[in-house]
């Protein structure tokens, strides 16, 4: 794939479970790529249409009507562009039909199984279960589990190259005995990717060759010290296109329309975040909180990770957020008294009528409280998976590791995080942008200096697949049109006493109309302060923490930063990490209300 194909006009679609969204990207006279028009139509994979291309054409037609550019000739996309007719390329992503659902299996839970999980997640899949030889389940339980799941494909790994074959062959025997059936389509064989010890290939072929559609690819863990996920991820995406997508009506036609393979939506979002982090040389995190799932992406020191919390979301899965977080954790964010029975019923009613929206401020506060918990839990799961390689330098062979439990350090270091990007309805469409900003700060609790932004109209998937053909175009549109910069959060690491001085801040905000009066303040521990800015503003910031606190340069050491503006502004958060919220209802309500009022959340 050429990564900087010369393009002037691009049409891109994302076929979601419910809606298909089309965007038009054009290179202007200055040579800049900008997103210009957007169209949307219901996705048409179910009755009575049974053809995804119908929804694509409807969405593209809306773009035609809005832009005045003729893009379609009948039911064909006109390529290349000539004057005001046609486009230079059509690209697409998809999560229709629930996306890609996989089962992964590896010899050792904390090593090859975890690597397999990272491979699958990085390819854009939802991982239904992770089986390992040492996961504590008995053979018949593993077999029953494999049989009861209906994955789209299985990724099997295990053993470093040349090492033991026993465990991975045993896993392949369990898979064969379970005789798993794919989720979609009754008549085709389940795709299984073997990405383990090359020495075991023949045995695995012998066990699984007839019963499944078996593919072989490079070992994802060729040595203990090295993880090689790219070949497996590529294979997953290839098979996703060939097998899973084939079962969804109209995809065989859609495949012939696109220049590059259709990517699973979360795979494309992840690729975009990786691209941006690489281009700018920064550490980045992204979160997409949807109705059923929450995806978290991170790039720390060039290492990319993605997790999908498959049962944390704001509508279909909202009751699961309550189940996993617990009522107490949800209530701690609600600044008014509410009967627990009433809250439980409201959440269940949203679960069974997921398309409704909050009408009153109290309902909005409850939803945003739940969103904080969903984000927090998803982030926690992400930190657990985004870890350094386990078993390195201490273990000589896979078999030796069975009785060992080593834990890798998380790669997620909030002090070194440069930007946090939020996406999904509850963040992108909050009535006030500062609500999005505080939800993300409360859930992720960044430290040091962190930029925050939201995705304005959910075009990250489109830009992700665009990045695979033209990185410059993707990055430009991402920065200029996709992201709504919210501002910057400065938060120190360290503990202190409520009310005692935590840091001194000096702020000079420059606006296009002139400089604002400079601000200098001592800020005590336990507060949150907002200094409003606009998108076009810039600021010079000097923060000097007291000796117990660190804002990135060490305890007591000042930082000087030039920061870009945002639609919310500069936030100084001295509430402490982790946030301490009183259990007592009265104290909690008073404190939360104080924070929300200081931030201008609902008043």
């Amino acid at each position, binding site marked *: 794939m050429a990564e900087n194909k010369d393009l002037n006009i691009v049409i891109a679609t994302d076929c979601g479970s419910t809606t298909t969204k089309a965007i038009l990207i054009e290179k202007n006279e200055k040579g800049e790529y900008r997103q210009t028009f957007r169209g*949307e139509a219901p996705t048409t994979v179910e009755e009575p249409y049974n053809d995804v291309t119908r929804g694509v054409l409807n969405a593209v037609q809306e773009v035609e009507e809005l832009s005045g550019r003729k893009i379609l000739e009948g039911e064909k996309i006109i390529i290349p562009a000539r004057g005001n007719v046609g486009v230079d390329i059509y690209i697409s992503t998809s999560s229709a039909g629930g996306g890609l659902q996989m089962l992964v299996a590896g010899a050792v839970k904390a090593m090859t199984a975890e690597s397999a999980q990272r491979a699958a997640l990085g390819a854009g899949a939802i991982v239904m279960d992770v089986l390992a030889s040492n996961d504590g389940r008995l*053979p018949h339980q593993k077999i029953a589990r494999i049989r009861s799941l209906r994955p789209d494909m299985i990724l099997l790994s295990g053993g470093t190259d040349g090492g033991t074959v026993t465990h991975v062959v045993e896993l392949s025997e369990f898979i*064969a005995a379970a005789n798993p059936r794919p989720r979609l389509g009754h008549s085709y064989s389940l795709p299984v990717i073997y990405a383990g010890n090359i020495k075991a290939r023949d045995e695995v072929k012998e066990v699984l060759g007839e019963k499944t559609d078996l593919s072989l690819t490079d070992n994802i863990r060729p040595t203990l010290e090295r993880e090689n996920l790219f070949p497996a991820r590529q294979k997953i995406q290839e098979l996703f296109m060939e097998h899973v997508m084939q079962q969804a009506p109209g995809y065989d036609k859609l495949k012939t329309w696109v220049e590059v393979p259709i990517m699973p939506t979360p795979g494309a979002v992840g690729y975009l975040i990786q691209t941006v982090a690489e281009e700018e040389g920064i550490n980045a995190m992204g979160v997409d909180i949807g109705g059923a799932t929450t995806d978290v992406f991170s790039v720390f020191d060039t290492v990319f990770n993605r997790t999908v919390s498959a*049962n944390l979301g704001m509508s279909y*899965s909202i009751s699961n957020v309550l189940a996993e977080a617990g009522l107490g954790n949800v209530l701690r964010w609600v600044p008014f008294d509410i009967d627990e029975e009433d809250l439980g019923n409201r*959440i*269940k009613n949203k679960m069974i009528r997921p398309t*409704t*929206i909050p009408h009153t401020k109290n309902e909005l506060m409850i939803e945003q409280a739940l969103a904080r918990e969903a984000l927090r839990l998803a982030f926690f799961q992400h930190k657990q998976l985004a870890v350094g390689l386990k078993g390195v330098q201490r273990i000589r062979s896979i078999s030796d590791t069975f009785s060992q439990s080593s834990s890798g350090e998380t790669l997620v270091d909030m002090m070194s995080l440069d930007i946090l990007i939020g996406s999904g309805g509850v963040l992108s469409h909050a009535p006030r942008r500062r609500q999005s900003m505080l939800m993300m700060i409360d859930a992720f609790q960044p430290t040091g200096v962190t930029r925050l932004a939201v995705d304005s109209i959910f075009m990250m998937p489109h830009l992700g697949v665009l990045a695979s053909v033209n990185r410059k175009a993707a990055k430009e549109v991402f920065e200029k049109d996709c992201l709504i910069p919210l501002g910057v959060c400065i938060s120190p690491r360290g503990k202190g006493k409520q009310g005692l001085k935590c840091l001194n801040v000096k702020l000079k905000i420059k606006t296009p109309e002139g400089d604002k009066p400079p601000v200098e303040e001592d800020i005590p521990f336990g507060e949150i302060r907002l200094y409003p800015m606009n998108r076009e503003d810039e600021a010079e910031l000097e923060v000097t923490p007291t000796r117990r606190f660190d804002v990135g340069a060490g305890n007591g050491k000042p930082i000087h930063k030039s920061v870009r503006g945002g639609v919310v502004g500069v936030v100084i958060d001295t509430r402490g990490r982790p946030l301490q919220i009183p259990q007592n209802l009265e104290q909690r309500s008073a404190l939360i209300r104080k924070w929300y009022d200081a931030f201008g959340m609902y008043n």
Partner: protein
Amino acid sequence: MAHVFTPGLQVIASTIVTKERTLPIPGKVRVKPGDRVKAEDVIAETAIPNDVQSINVVNRLSITAKEIRNVMLKKVGDPVEEHEPIAQNKPFLGLKFLQSIIRAPFKGSIERISDVTGQVLIRKPPRRITLTAYVDGVVKDVTEGLGADIETACSFIQGIFGIGGEAFGEIQMACSSPDGNLDEEDIMDDYKGKLIIGGSHITYKGFRKAMELGVKGVIVGGFNASELKEVLGYELGVAITGDEDIPTTLIVTEGFGKMAIAQRTFDLLKSHNGRRASISGYTQIRAGVMRPEIIVPFTEQEARDVKKHVPKAETGIQKGDEVRIIREPYFGRLGSIVDLPPDLTKIDTEAYVRIMTVKLSDSGETVTVPRANVELIEV
């Protein structure tokens, strides 16, 4: 522009419903088109692969995996009885009492013998599963080896949420009004085996008594989330239900909390008091929504002139349409649409959304409601 409203739950006095009855894996279908069936009749059956257990032969006989074929007394595909020897080593020094014998832990067949892992997999005999007709009706179509479509002329009512699987029984009114409450003392002994119709709510104790008594189904307007947790033993995270191991199916028609059954639903069920019905608590709230249902089949004579109900044409919502509000602060209240302003309107949350104004039936008050927060009622 997509229609932004929630179609209402179906409450239809007279229609034709076709239920697709399908085996999970191919088997034998026992009916043919035109056959008249009852809900409990078995229309198809199959055998599904049963559990597999692995036996680590090499460890138990202290041999290597490569030697396993030398010790096996059975080969792949052979049937075995419980405790039957399947492998043995050579007796040490020819002394039989020093010989190790491995026996099958249960009746089954040899699935696999692995000379890599040294394990033997034994599978239990296949499990027979049967498929019932689920509703009284007529077999319309048969898919060879997989199942059949059963057609029935009936009254058809959808609920909003349910737990428990399919059940059949006689409808029994247990409340005299749609807002009645059922508690433990309201569950009568003669409700055993029946499908009881409550009012706005049943308590956990009431439902527990229904389960203990052997009531087949409970249909109420509302149920508390906390009580659902008590019934299930866990907090339900996602609305995908139907496989719960409970003896009584629960169908909630309006929502969580105390909610009077919609008058038309109550009246329709009351008109069928004493009649046979089939219900299912199966609920799936995701792409391809499935709702719990109550089907009251007609007799052959009643079915004669029944036509399939055709839903109101998909023209979207219009002024004058009857709606129910499905979110706070007007949850459960009925009304008719007064106006549908095209522009985005700011609501209490400060969000800009498409709204409608609705005249409430109970108070006559006209209120503003987001369009996403109503469901259409088909009269």
